């Protein structure tokens, strides 16, 4: 059974600060996706990374895929209250299903 560990589980920081959240597995991903989920809603895709070492930027969000394709990070620069939410990583291990992590619940304090 492939497991994805996300850390930290909870993070609360002041507006304007930078932060990084992590997603780790003991298995190699064929691809990894980051989602954001609001309460009572479905996950919304932020980015997909496929190649080891890949870095993708989405405005103030920077996503990095580890060289060995076992880990990923999401870095947010100058966090804003609108960034508050549950961030989920989800990995594909060469089959049809996405395995989700437990998520990082991020709170940005104005």
């Amino acid at each position, binding site marked *: 059974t492939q497991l994805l560990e996300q850390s930290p589980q909870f993070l609360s920081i002041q507006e304007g600060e930078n932060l990084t959240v992590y997603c780790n597995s003991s298995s190699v991903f*064929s*691809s990894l*996706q980051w*989602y954001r989920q609001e309460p*009572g*809603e*479905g*996950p*919304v*895709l932020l980015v*997909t990374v*496929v190649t080891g070492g890949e870095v993708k930027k989405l405005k103030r969000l920077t996503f990095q895929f580890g060289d060995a394709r076992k880990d990923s990070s999401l870095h947010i620069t100058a966090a804003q209250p609108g960034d508050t939410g549950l961030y*989920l990583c*989800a990995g*594909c291990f*060469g*089959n*049809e*299903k*996405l*395995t*989700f*992590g*437990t*998520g990082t619940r991020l709170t940005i304090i104005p």
Partner: protein
Amino acid sequence: EPEVTQTPSHQVTQMGQEVILRCVPISNHLYFYWYRQILGQKVEFLVSFYNNEISEKSEIFDDQFSVERPDGSNFTLKIRSTKLEDSAMYFCASSAARANTGELFFGEGSRLTVL
């Protein structure tokens, strides 16, 4: 922007009753999925569906569950005899390509409460 739509948004049912959850995937997508999320827990894969057949299913997806694409637009999840532990948010997702290369788009979910 195209989106995955799900109905009902919330269903309350008695234990032992049959439930059908409906989804309309994005129109040009070929791969369809059901996931569920028990309150406070992580999103879990149930089943994937491609070319009118199940391509993969999890241990959760036992004989009480079935999926169907009856008319080329709807994608349904049926639970034959609901149990208390089936209470969860059920998410439908669709993708233009396989999960390991494509991007999954999720619906807003159907909340199932089994009493």
